[in-house]
């Protein structure tokens, strides 16, 4: 590393590596383009960032920022893969695990789940906190899709996809704070009473096991799924088969 590299107007430093970026790119966009993994959940490169899960938090010039919303700047010094930041990310994941009901052994999404795979990447060995065990009934009213709200992490990807890509506004996040919940935009509140379909982008963006296509859950056996094969740090957004 030379002084010339550090002062290059189109690069920044991420964990002592030089990362090129173009004007308007966020830290995570530039990092991922350079093949560097920053753990994240509510960020999906196909959508406008939401900045809510905070798992992608980095230290940019010494200040904490969500790398999915923070624009890259020349000469910025970014820390990501440090023990302190990873400990904080793991605590965020543990809070997500205990706030919902995440029973991986009986979940169709296991092995293709970004929450689970991110927890593997951050070596989460236990949920640490006390479980909330909330009561969140399923919605099986749609002929092709099941909604299991127990697993929702409020990333809003289905909300963004349905609103911005499908033009349908099938989903929304309701209430605030700890009471925030995913709701379905129908008078009955049931997915079966919306025009949601398998062709919708929203049907295919859930990073966890909330939006589940019926009758194909175990087509690919557990043990052979995307994140069973490769860690999420190697392949953050693989084409997922069978779930």
């Amino acid at each position, binding site marked *: 590393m030379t002084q010339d590299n550090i002062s290059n107007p189109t690069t920044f430093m991420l964990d002592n590596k030089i990362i090129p970026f173009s004007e308007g790119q966020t830290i995570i966009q530039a990092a991922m383009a350079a093949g560097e993994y920053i753990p994240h959940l509510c960020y999906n490169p196909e959508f406008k960032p939401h900045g809510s899960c905070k798992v992608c938090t980095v230290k940019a010039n010494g200040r904490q920022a969500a790398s999915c919303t923070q624009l890259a700047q020349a000469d910025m010094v970014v820390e990501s893969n440090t023990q302190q930041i990873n400990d904080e990310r793991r605590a965020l994941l543990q809070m997500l*695990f205990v706030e919902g*009901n*995440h*029973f*991986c*052994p*009986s*979940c169709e999404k*296991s*092995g293709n789940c970004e929450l*689970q795979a991110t*927890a*593997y990447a951050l*070596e989460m*060995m*236990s*949920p*640490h906190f*006390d*479980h909330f*065990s*909330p*009561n*969140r009934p399923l919605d099986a009213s749609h002929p092709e899709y099941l909604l299991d709200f127990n697993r929702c992490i409020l990333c809003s990807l289905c909300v963004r996809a349905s609103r911005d890509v499908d033009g349908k506004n099938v989903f929304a996040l309701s209430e605030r704070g700890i009471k925030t919940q995913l709701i379905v935009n129908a008078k009955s509140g049931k997915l079966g009473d919306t025009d949601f379909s398998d062709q919708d982008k929203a049907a295919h963006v859930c990073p966890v096991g909330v939006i589940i296509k019926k009758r194909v859950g175990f087509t690919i056996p*557990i043990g052979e799924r995307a994140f*069973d094969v490769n*860690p999420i740090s190697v392949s953050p957004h693989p084409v997922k088969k069978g779930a």
Partner: protein
Amino acid sequence: MNAPAKPKLRMATATLAGCFGCHMSFLDIDERLFDLIELVEFDRSPLTDIKHCGPCDIGLIEGGLCNAENVHVLREFRANCKILIAVGACAINGGLPAQRNHFPLSLILEEVYHAQHGLVDGFIPNDPELPLPLDKVHPLHEVVKIDYFIPGCPPSGDTIWKVLTDLLAGREPELGHALLHYD
């Protein structure tokens, strides 16, 4: 002169609200059991049928806490084991038994002992020998300090072996991508 034989470490295992799958997986270490018994001797365990846990170096607990007896056993292990390890999904987050947690216990007992077809004279068992069910199923770490966790449903024999051999060698257990699974 020969050095005195190194004393064997003592190890105990128990199943609480679990299915014994983690113990079956432990037996999946197969012939490595012979290596293990060179290093440890078993205290309380389904393998020895010893009923109470004495002072031990390592305790492995499978299953969560669904009744009062589970809590007593867990506390006995914690009081006696230098290192206590939660093994498997049920010990770590309650697992399958914890899926009753969003129903009131009274409703479940009614459903099982009164409402089912053919249970006209059914009654909820109340023999004093039966441990009382807990209101909710809890993972172990919500009641006592747990030193290490081995996730999986069940964790593979290789995973359990890796943690045990790391500990016996004085290393911090490390699983890595191949052995760390919640399913």
